[in-house]
């Protein structure tokens, strides 16, 4: 066959059509990702926590829970302004600055309150994170992907609760390397870290470590399930959340 311009254009057209189809076929044959959630994992539509401050309100008791949390998550111990904290305690005035009044019951005013990331329904930290290192999971947990964190600290500026800590130095220097939890990673210098509602424990069917260690002073469950433990407690007891005017809708509730 003599090669004319006409036949060349015909062949080129067929080849172009083939190129347009072939990659899709190649993709279709790969199928879905070969992964699934753990069979032992516990699921919820929206995880939430209720803290009973009538039972848990001393610095010693809260520090004990913080110790458990910080140990299993390899949170470094650093004194001073550069401290890293996932769970800590503070006064009424600092915990509920908007809900203070001069004639508050003295007993309530003198309590100290356990604080942690509120895993807000409307988290400002997620909105401001430029790399999506901080993200909200479908089950409401605000999680961090430390692989993506570039240390810009926008999330720290965005969080109205100071729930995030920046690793100014090498975090491993603040850890007792003999007593490391080998099941959980540490962080590196230059990333922000925070409480993760123990996602790694939920994935194997366990409750968060602080809830487990709290001896009933903390409740954990599905906020969207009317029969869940947290909903039962919320129905029976009066609860408040931190800084309502910030509009972040925290998932951590405090029984006063």
């Amino acid at each position, binding site marked *: 066959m003599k090669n004319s311009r006409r036949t060349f254009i015909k062949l080129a057209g067929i080849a172009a059509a083939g190129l347009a189809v072939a990659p899709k076929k190649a993709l279709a044959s790969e199928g879905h*990702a*070969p*992964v*699934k*959630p*753990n*069979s032992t*994992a516990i699921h919820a539509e929206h995880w939430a926590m209720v803290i009973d401050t009538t039972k848990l309100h001393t610095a010693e008791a809260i520090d004990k829970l913080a110790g458990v949390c910080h140990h299993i998550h*390899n949170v470094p111990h650093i004194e001073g302004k550069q401290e890293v904290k996932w769970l800590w305690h503070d006064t009424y005035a600092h915990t509920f600055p908007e809900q203070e009044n001069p004639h508050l019951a003295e007993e309530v005013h003198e309590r100290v309150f356990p604080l942690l990331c509120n895993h807000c329904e409307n988290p400002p930290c997620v909105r401001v994170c430029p790399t999506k290192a901080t*993200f909200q*999971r*479908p*089950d409401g947990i605000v*999680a961090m*992907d*430390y*692989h993506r964190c570039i240390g810009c600290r926008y999330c720290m500026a965005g969080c109205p609760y100071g729930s995030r800590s920046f690793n100014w130095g090498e975090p*491993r220097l603040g850890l007792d*390397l003999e007593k*490391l939890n*080998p*099941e*959980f*990673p*540490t*962080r*590196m210098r230059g990333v922000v870290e925070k409480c993760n509602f123990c*996602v790694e424990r939920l*994935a194997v069917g366990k409750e968060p470590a602080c809830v487990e260690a709290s001896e009933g002073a903390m409740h954990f469950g599905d906020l969207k399930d009317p029969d869940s433990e947290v909903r039962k407690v919320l129905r029976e007891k009066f609860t408040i959340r931190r800084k309502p005017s910030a509009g972040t809708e925290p998932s951590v509730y405090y029984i006063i």
Partner: protein
Amino acid sequence: MYNGFAIVAGLVIFFAMLTAPFALGTMTKQYKEPELKLPKNEKECIESTEFMRTEHMQLLNEWRDWALRDGKRTYINHKGKEFTISLQNTCMKCHASKADFCDKCHNDAGVSPYCWDCHVQPEGLK
């Protein structure tokens, strides 16, 4: 040709230097892949050896996103066997020595992945 001797001599030296790495390379020993210390009790990795050798970095990247971002922590390999997605708790439980398994190849290839800036190696940290 003007300055013929100088030009030819220069060219000879130039080509000698250009091909020197190849010439020296064939004279010295052949490249040998580093010998890795494989796990004692397990015979098979989660995927075939060839796949792991060439694709483990992509697999680890996918594992990272599946576990952390998608909340899917069980991996089903090509044979249908299930594994928990975890570098520290699955990979390094079998390959119990970072120095003998990871470092040998990485040092040889001149790459230094930053996995260990955060993940705890099986030997523990010093």
